[in-house]
């Protein structure tokens, strides 16, 4: 069974962390992953940097740009991760935009992910219908779970369609925004969280965008099975480097 499914079946509220591979320094990737696991993180989203990240706010854009300057590429990331399963056992997901994967070759990309022990992919600009028609079979052949996003504007009908195509979890974007632009959740978000929780979807939901401290983590996991922190962690890396990762995680839960 895929590590993502195993983790979510344990029933625990999960905390997942996103960071841009190759940031702050090119060779920090593996160390950050290992430290996050040691600090009690349940799942990690490894960001494959892209020159034009449409869905990301300034924090993740800046870290992606820096990572690219540092020399990060798809091949460099795969090389860095080749022995990752010797030391890390939590679910690992690669999150990135579609074009770099397309250039690597989708089949090659998936094959490489399987060899390394990557459990899933999040590709914000690969639409669910294109995935279902063209790529689902390939992802499944290599045991990869593809994760789709939903937003407060996503219709119930489409959420059910996304639920039917998904086989891991649904990534609930907390509000209409790019990454890193929210502070705190209000009544609108809570209504949305409740609405989704009451839909009885077959896939568990994990909330992302706008989770940046213990309070928002608690709020989100009241309604969903987990939460994802991205920009706030990158901000932490920018300010503190890679030495105080455990402190960041402790402050969340």
């Amino acid at each position: 069974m895929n590590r993502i499914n195993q983790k979510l079946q344990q029933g625990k509220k999960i905390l997942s962390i996103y960071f841009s591979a190759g940031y702050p320094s090119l060779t920090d990737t593996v160390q950050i992953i290992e430290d996050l696991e040691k600090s009690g993180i349940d799942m990690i989203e490894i960001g494959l940097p892209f020159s034009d990240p449409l869905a990301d706010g300034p924090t993740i854009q800046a870290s992606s740009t820096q990572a690219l300057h540092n020399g990060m590429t798809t091949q460099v990331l795969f090389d860095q991760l080749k022995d990752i399963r010797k030391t890390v056992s939590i679910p690992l997901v690669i999150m990135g935009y579609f074009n770099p994967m397309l250039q690597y070759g989708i089949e090659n990309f998936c094959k490489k992910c399987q060899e390394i022990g990557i459990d899933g992919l999040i590709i914000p600009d690969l639409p669910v219908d294109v995935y279902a028609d063209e790529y689902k079979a390939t992802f499944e052949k290599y045991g990869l779970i593809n994760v789709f996003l939903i937003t407060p504007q996503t219709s119930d009908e489409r959420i059910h369609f996304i639920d039917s195509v998904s086989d891991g979890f649904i990534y609930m974007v907390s509000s209409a925004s790019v990454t890193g632009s929210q502070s705190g959740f209000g009544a609108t978000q809570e209504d949305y969280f409740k609405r989704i929780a009451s839909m009885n979807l077959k896939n568990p939901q994990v909330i992302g965008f706008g989770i940046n401290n213990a309070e928002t983590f608690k709020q989100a996991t009241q309604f969903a099975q987990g939460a994802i922190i991205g920009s706030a962690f990158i901000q932490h890396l920018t300010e503190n480097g890679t030495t105080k990762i455990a402190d960041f995680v402790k402050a969340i839960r």
Partner: protein
Amino acid sequence: MSYNVNEKGYYGEFGGAYIPEMLYPNVEELRQNYLKITAEPEFQAEFDALLKDYVGRPTPLYFAERLSAMYNTKVYLKREDLCHTGAHKVNNTIGQILLAKRLGKKRIIAETGAGQHGVATATVCALMGLECIVYMGEIDIKRQAPNVARMKMLGAEVRPALSGSKTLKDATNEAIRDWINNPVDTYYIIGSVVGPHPYPDMVARFQSVISKEIKSQLLEKEGRENPDYVIACVGGGSNAAGAYYHFLDEKDVNIIAVEAAGLGVHSGESAATSALGKVGVIHGSKTLLMQTTDGQITEPYSISAGLDYPGVGPMHAHLFASGRAQFISITDEQAMDWGLKLSKLEGLIPAIESAHAFAVLDEMKFKKDDIVVINLSGRGDKDLNTYIDYFKL
């Protein structure tokens, strides 16, 4: 083979809507409504009336006598340079603003490179009394000060795009991010035949008035609707899409697309996407795209800001891949020389973008009786500073 978009939003293998889920409701709303709304008689009547009385259409099809004599062929110029705001861009912004109003949108956003589409958007927002925010790369804001001032006079807010290379592609990214952040009341007026379906098709349809007029004007002047050649410059490709539109399925019409070679196709400073690009995804569309082997989008270069885009619209990618259109790339130097040549020969100072199209006259051999239509997509007022610097005027 069809050269128009299919039901799923593709031209051959190109096009589609590779967008984050956050944009899906907006793009889907547009996809479901654009054909229905633009087919309504009331919409068409309002669109046609504004094109006629506000934009100044039909634009003339001018027989360039001295140019024709020099090249021993029949050269006609489609005078989009005479459109209000100085270029063809306004044909599209008129269409989209009418659509935005019918969708009940209150806030308009746009991206701009050289500022022509920004000015055309600010103009129609002023006309309709709608809030207008234009994203423009920080570097372009410095390079195109007169157009920034025009947009401000027209009541638009110009927001600098500070990310990435701080030019057109980044302004487009910022506009898309704005749309993600404001999904309900905001409409995004894209300025070229790029972006997710249905934008390429919608913009091409609004610009198709260019080739519709060419047909009826040629019939009047030459007794035939079809030219032998139709020539247009291609950045994203909206003036070209409009100039080609009604000729796409007319096999006897040769379609010539002119890209900016910059300092030379293989100089590393170029925007010749058909020569340098590979299939990829940019701004929600699968198309030909200048990129690294790792799939990072590279920064193009052309002296003309309007051709300075790392991709082409999916329609053009398909015209290239299928061989329907012939693609030619023209250097900065050739285009600038033509800017001066056309000014002296015909009394027309072209936009540097449009000047690229004329250089085809030196690259190809035409017969005496050939009818060659060149789309003069914009006038050169906006480029005066570049002309002054280049020629030390």
